[in-house]
């Protein structure tokens, strides 16, 4: 094998499958953010901790959706369904039969860690079951077909009572890791602050979210990430280059569903119980809004978007008394949820119209770098048929 070309630093940096040798400022910023987040429970109260837990669950689920919609180009509105599979799956697998009092919900009483892993696999399996439909449909047909999963799901949550507990929902068993429970029972004291259920879950979720982020980033940088992006840009070109288009789409769907399932497990743990109305169409739409606002296909964008869409309404509600124009829920004015929904609805419209790369591209542009225009892959190349 000959190797006569000399390598410039720029080439070395761009080498596929090769990690950059020097630490970039962006990486440093991310590490700093994680450290700040790790010590945050020492300083904030329970309601903010809860908001943080939901947000981290949403970040994980949103990463899954951005891989599917942004990278693989498959519009899906079914994300809420796969979250539910994960959440209810965990509650069912880890729960004990009959302990929930009036509830008719059954359970297998598995170890919570095992139950969580199996719940994520179950969500992936649900994605796999749907993928024969998903991989054959054109984008927009898929969007509508996936909508049906949300409604079929809602039907199941209310009617398959042995698993879901029906309309009133069911409790989720607290998490425990090798016998160490994530409850208030055996409270630790860290730096003078009692570490109860929420603090412990916070640290657990942070680890899960960071690992999810890194895993997805690695996938997108690797062979399957390239395959998914090419399938998005041109299915024919991908197939001719040896990519099994159907399998790649199905793989994207399964991966995305597993992320959703993991997010669902986290929601179950953060909330402590599961109710059908949580996993409605609004949740799916919220996730779609999150990844669009963040910038389709960008994992960091998905995280920012998930924060915006999930923490936004909760923060607005919490601080509603000190914010102008915001009224209490039920008074007919703009309560926190509605105000935030208007904000992110508007953000979606503005992003689609003016900044297809979302907040991620906006951030890069502000930092003086070239934006990645994920929503508009260059005008069609087929000038004449």
């Amino acid at each position, binding site marked *: 094998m000959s190797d006569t070309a000399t390598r410039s630093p720029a080439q070395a940096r761009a080498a596929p499958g090769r990690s950059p040798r020097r630490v970039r400022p962006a990486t440093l910023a991310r590490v700093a953010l994680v450290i700040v987040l790790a010590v945050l429970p020492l300083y904030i109260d329970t309601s903010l901790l809860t908001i943080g837990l939901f947000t981290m669950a949403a970040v994980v689920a949103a990463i899954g959706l951005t891989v599917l919609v942004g990278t693989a180009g498959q519009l899906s509105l079914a994300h809420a369904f796969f979250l539910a599979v994960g959440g209810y799956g965990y509650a069912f697998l880890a729960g004990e039969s009959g302990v929930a009092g009036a509830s008719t919900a059954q359970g297998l009483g598995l170890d919570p860690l095992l139950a969580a892993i199996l719940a994520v696999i179950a969500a992936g399996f649900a994605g796999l079951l749907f993928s024969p439909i998903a991989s054959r449909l054109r984008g927009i047909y898929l969007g509508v077909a996936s909508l049906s999963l949300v409604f079929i799901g809602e039907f199941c949550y209310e009617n398959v009572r042995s698993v879901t507990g029906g309309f009133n929902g069911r409790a989720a068993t607290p998490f425990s890791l090798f016998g160490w429970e994530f409850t208030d029972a055996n409270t630790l004291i860290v730096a003078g602050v009692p570490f109860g259920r929420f603090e412990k879950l916070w640290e657990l979720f942070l680890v899960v979210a960071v690992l999810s982020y890194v895993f997805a980033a690695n996938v997108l940088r*690797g*062979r399957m990430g390239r395959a998914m992006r090419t399938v998005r840009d041109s299915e024919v070109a991908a197939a001719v280059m040896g990519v099994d288009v159907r399998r790649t789409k199905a793989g994207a769907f399964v991966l995305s569903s597993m992320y959703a399932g993991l997010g669902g497990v986290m929601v179950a743990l953060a909330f402590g119980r599961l109710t059908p109305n949580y996993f409605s169409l609004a949740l799916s739409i919220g996730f779609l809004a999150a990844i669009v606002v963040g910038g389709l296909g960008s994992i960091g964008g998905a995280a920012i978007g998930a924060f915006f869409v999930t923490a936004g309404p909760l923060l607005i509600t919490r601080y509603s008394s000190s914010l102008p124009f915001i009224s209490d829920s039920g008074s007919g004015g703009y309560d926190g949820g509605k105000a935030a929904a208007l904000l992110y609805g508007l953000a979606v419209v503005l992003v689609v119209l003016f900044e297809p790369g979302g907040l991620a591209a906006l951030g890069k542009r502000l930092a003086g770098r070239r934006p990645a225009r994920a929503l508009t892959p260059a005008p069609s190349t087929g000038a004449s048929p």
Partner: protein
Amino acid sequence: MTVAPDVAALVLTDVCVRFAGLKALDNVSFTVEPGSLHAVIGPNGAGKSTAFNVLCGIYTATSGSVRYGDHELTAMRPHKIARLGVARAFQNIALSKGQTVAENLMLGRHALTRAGFVSSGLRLRPATREGRRHGERVREIAAFVGLGDKFAQPAGLLSYGDQKRVEVARALACEPRLLLLDEPVAGMNSDEKVRMAGLITEVRRELGISILLVEHDMGLVMGISDRVTVLDFGKRIADGTPSEVQNDPEVVKAYLGTGEDEADA
């Protein structure tokens, strides 16, 4: 030049393709000998692109057979055909324009590599080693086609001529035994054409693979091909060496058109 031992013949036998009553290919037969440079020419709408699409598995032949070595290609899905070592460069550049040249070329390695979601996601040793090894090879390929200095640039920002070279390089990155080139010099100026022609002959000389070329530029086709098949109205009207084909009256008629007096002949 030597023909690589694993390069097989491509044999089309009586291939027909119909779309809604229209015969896009009508009993077309020809053979691409191992290691040869074979061109398919014909006026617009003659069925050349259709033939390519059948070879790649994008269209399914209505009848007839396409064999590459021991494999029957007609019922095979495109990615399986690609895995046999049949690679294609598209006429209307079908690159991922937002991705770098390197990324586009690495896509060509898809069938040669294994890393899946899990091994990439966890950065397992086999995945990173594979990525490095193949990364080095695509860099060689980029240097070979003259894109070494554009390796890290987004494909969409390159000049038209460079984008066509990325197309060819991406097909080469599949390590093909049969390379399909769909109008590689269309829209190029004469300098770019000369470079591309040089590249094509060099690929054959150094790799010893078969090349099947669809092209409108007669200078290129006649200059570098071993054998030429001429299509018109989906039918094969001539097949032979470049000089045989150039002097074939049927071919002259197909290209220059004929007066009305000859039309009934």
